[in-house]
């Protein structure tokens, strides 16, 4: 019997007696007999914690791709950045971890203030005046952004650059089945979106344009061009952005984006096999009443002291129900708190330094790899700052397997990301041979040099 239940047999008896019952079963008298599960659940009985821990540790051991075994060069929205002990310690404080949504602000100032600080930091990163308290992940933040854009523009046609992460586009498409948005994917050429001619594109005048900055192939695109289109169409510009690259590149807000969304994982959250991550969302003040999810605002208590509370609640599902701007309830607050702590640790200079170091590693590795036989560029001369795509002489999945045997998680195969289809972001051949490589500030020159040597072997025949 392994559990966390406090009840002793005597207490159960006393409580039943208090209820006038003689057996625990009677508590479920309202459940029709015919529906009752006879013989209990059909899986193993409970096991003590140490047994279970041993089992899970064995599963963990079976992951060859763990960071202590393979040096990580994979990115695609999830990066192996430094998360120092101090951030882990603070973000792990049980008051943050085991609290609920701040329904009673008087006893939730800790989370509320941390989120208020988070919102400020995200707004500054995005170059926009307001940010929310988090969404599930980058893709879901994008879905919400498009919903907002459609609502704001009043038009359901959405032009989505194929530079947007393929998984995010997939999620957009999934949810568009419900909202009925018409998604038009716009192809890339050498890593840059080729927006349709000024005569307009397919599907009529777009209400929303979506572009990546950097895009999923790591390239910085000319967002000014997208902005000009939006101005022409009266459309909303949604940009997906990377919060670390933002340390040295212009804010999408600065380029004129109306909504900026991003994957917040690089801000203090580990790789964690893809979750829990953190959807970043910032927008213009004009759209604040369409903002999805939770928003913390500053106010005062009865004694005039500064205090924080969730606000503009009339947007939310628990008040507006079917008319809410979004259905989100539980979100990723703990990751938002973590991001605030990580950004507090980084500070102004630290964020810039991390971005710069990523850019240096990216430059160093890319240049060295392009010297190799069997490796060629995939996105022309498009500028890259934290990640880049290469064409290998052998299919990328093969390269990845071979590199694993040499101690590296070499990157992501474009074919895996795209899911095999010809999605317009790269040619089908580039898709099958394309490898997406990310270099963070944690990669040493020795590791980069060893990677080059290993890839040299891996791309042969």
């Amino acid at each position, binding site marked *: 019997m392994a559990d*966390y*239940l406090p009840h002793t047999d005597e207490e159960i008896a006393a409580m039943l007696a208090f*209820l006038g019952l003689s057996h625990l079963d009677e508590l479920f008298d*309202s459940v029709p007999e015919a*529906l009752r*599960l006879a013989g209990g*659940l*059909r899986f193993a009985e409970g096991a003590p*914690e140490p047994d*279970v*821990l041993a089992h899970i*540790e064995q599963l963990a*051991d*079976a992951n060859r*791709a763990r960071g202590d075994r393979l040096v990580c060069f*994979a990115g695609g929205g999830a990066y192996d950045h430094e998360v120092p002990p*101090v951030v882990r310690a*603070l973000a*792990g404080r*049980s008051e943050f*971890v085991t*609290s*609920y949504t701040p329904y*009673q602000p*008087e006893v939730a*100032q800790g*989370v509320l203030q941390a989120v*208020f600080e988070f*919102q*400020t*930091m995200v707004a500054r990163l995005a170059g926009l005046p307001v940010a929310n308290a988090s969404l*599930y992940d980058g893709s879901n933040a994008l879905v919400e952004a498009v919903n907002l854009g459609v609502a704001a523009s009043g038009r359901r046609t959405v032009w989505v650059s194929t530079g947007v992460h393929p998984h995010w586009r997939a*999620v957009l498409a999934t*949810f568009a089945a*419900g909202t009925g948005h018409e998604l038009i994917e716009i192809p890339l050429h050498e890593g840059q979106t080729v927006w349709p001619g000024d005569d307009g594109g397919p599907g009529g005048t777009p209400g929303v344009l979506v572009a990546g900055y950097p895009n999923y192939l790591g390239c910085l695109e000319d967002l000014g061009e997208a902005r000009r289109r939006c101005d022409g169409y009266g459309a909303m510009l949604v940009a997906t952005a990377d919060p670390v690259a933002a340390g040295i*590149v212009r*804010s999408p807000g600065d380029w004129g984006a109306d909504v900026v969304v991003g994957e917040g994982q690089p801000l203090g959250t580990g790789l964690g096999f*893809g*979750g829990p991550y953190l959807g970043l969302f910032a927008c213009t003040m004009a759209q604040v009443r369409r903002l999805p999810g939770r*928003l913390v605002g500053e106010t005062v*208590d009865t004694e005039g002291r500064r205090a924080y509370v969730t606000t503009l609640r009339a947007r939310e599902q*628990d008040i507006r129900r079917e008319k*809410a701007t979004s*259905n*989100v309830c*539980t979100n990723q607050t*703990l990751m938002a708190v973590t991001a605030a*702590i990580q950004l*507090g640790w980084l*500070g*102004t200079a*630290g964020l810039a330094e991390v971005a*710069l170091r990523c*850019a*240096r590693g990216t430059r*160093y590795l890319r240049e060295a790899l392009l010297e190799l036989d069997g490796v060629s560029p995939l996105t022309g001369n498009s500028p890259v700052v934290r990640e880049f795509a290469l064409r290998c002489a052998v299919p990328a*999945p093969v390269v990845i397997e071979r590199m694993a045997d040499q101690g590296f998680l070499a990157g992501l195969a474009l074919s*895996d990301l795209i*899911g095999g289809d010809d999605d317009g972001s790269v040619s089908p051949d580039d898709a099958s041979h394309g490898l997406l490589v990310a270099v963070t500030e944690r990669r*040493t020159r020795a590791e980069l040099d060893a990677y080059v040597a290993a890839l040299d072997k891996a791309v042969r025949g």
Partner: protein
Amino acid sequence: MTSETDAKQIADAAPRPAAGGRAASAPLLGRATEPTIFELSQPGRRSVQLLTTGVPEWPVDELVPVEHRRDVPVRLAEVSERDLVGHFTRLSHRQFSVDLGAYPLGSCTMKYNPKICDAVAVLPGLAAVHPGAPASLTQGWLSLLVELEEVLCAITGMAAATLQPAAGAAGELTGLLLMRAFHAANGEQRHRVIIPDSAHGTNPASVTLGGYEVTTVPSDERGCVDMGALREVLDTDVAGIMLTNPNTLGLFEEEIAEIAAAVHEVGGLLYYDGANLNAILGVVRPGDMGFDIVHMNLHKTFATPHGGGGPGAGPVAVSERLVDFLPGPRPVRRLGGVSEGNTFSPSEFAWVEPSRSIGRVHSWHGNALVLARALTYILVHGSDGLQRVAERAVLNANWLRVRLAGVFDVPFDRPCMHEVVLSASTLRKEHSVKALDVAKRLLEEGFHSPTVYFPLIVDEALMIEPTETESLQTLEALADALEAIVVEARSGDQSAWAAPRTTPVSRIDEARAARTLVATFDARR
């Protein structure tokens, strides 16, 4: 470190706060306001320390073309590690949590979150794995996900599940899109989804996002779906119905079999909102009640911590006929692949795309570390322990119900399941003390408040879910505190209006926050 020069140049160009850095200590248990991190900031101060890498130190202008280069750095707080720690530690002391005391929020299932799950979530073999690594390199994770899917299906009585949705509401929307895909595959286009008036707000919100219209059915005087009213709104335009059972009043929908039959009869599907699954673990399964689609809130039923509002996880399990529509890719155990002990052949588990998948609903595979926590919780309890969980949860709720029956109104005075909905209606009428006042006053007694004003159909609702991990003594203390508040109010003492007073801040002006929106530190000026 010359490598910092560029970053420093950038930083130097940043506009400096006029006066920063003031104050870096705050009263222990005092009631002083904690400054924002921006106010603790002092230009030039830093905590960051990065690995020495030896990578050539190109300056930023050789790396980023000028048109893409940021000219003003992102202004962030500049604090020492000491002040960073002080700030967030003090903030944590301004925050209630399960670890500090009872948190009887109805519908939220704030049970104890076992610490072993924290240990699991930081195992390097789980936490330091990139989600894009191929299946051959992540067999352990795939095995874990498959194992979780299997036990979740056993618990709910369903055929298969997706683990992608990141929370309950995400699960709802996923479920509605499954419904839509199912009908579409049958060549049907239905327009309406039925939900009871007691439903949680995410249900109608999800219905809208799923492209359906909401049809509300009222509850009857026993607090259950009004069968007559239901039959009236049922027709072949109904895609399905969303129910939670026990419902948000904590009452079991006894006519669930009839409801299922009626909905199925018109070709609709039944969606189970799993927020209240805790009440029925091992007692009755949604699949056996006739549900076609079930979401679970792992952060409720399976004790993964709520994190101040998230992360959660909202897997969706479905019956056989919906399996092919599930989001992909799905982790599966390959036929014939047999693991010996805990060694895996590199291809035993694989990702597959269901044949008629609605597509992805998450950037990767869902909130993986939350899933690992939930599996751990489930394996410790096992099939027997989960049933005890439900029994004790229901026992606790009923004990409180009977104990508090004379204290508050009990709108639906019959045995409840895992939570009980009371009402402060009489208290309000006779003594002008509202449910909100009771909630605020209870904070002073060291308990978190119950959920108030939900479900909407109960006037001055106080919804209490004690959960199974609170002891009888805690229930007694909670009941005593609530009773004392009522006695106080009845005696004409209006302390509750001014409550809470012993908390880090006193009652908060919520209206002002919305009126003069200050959602960032920069908006303060």
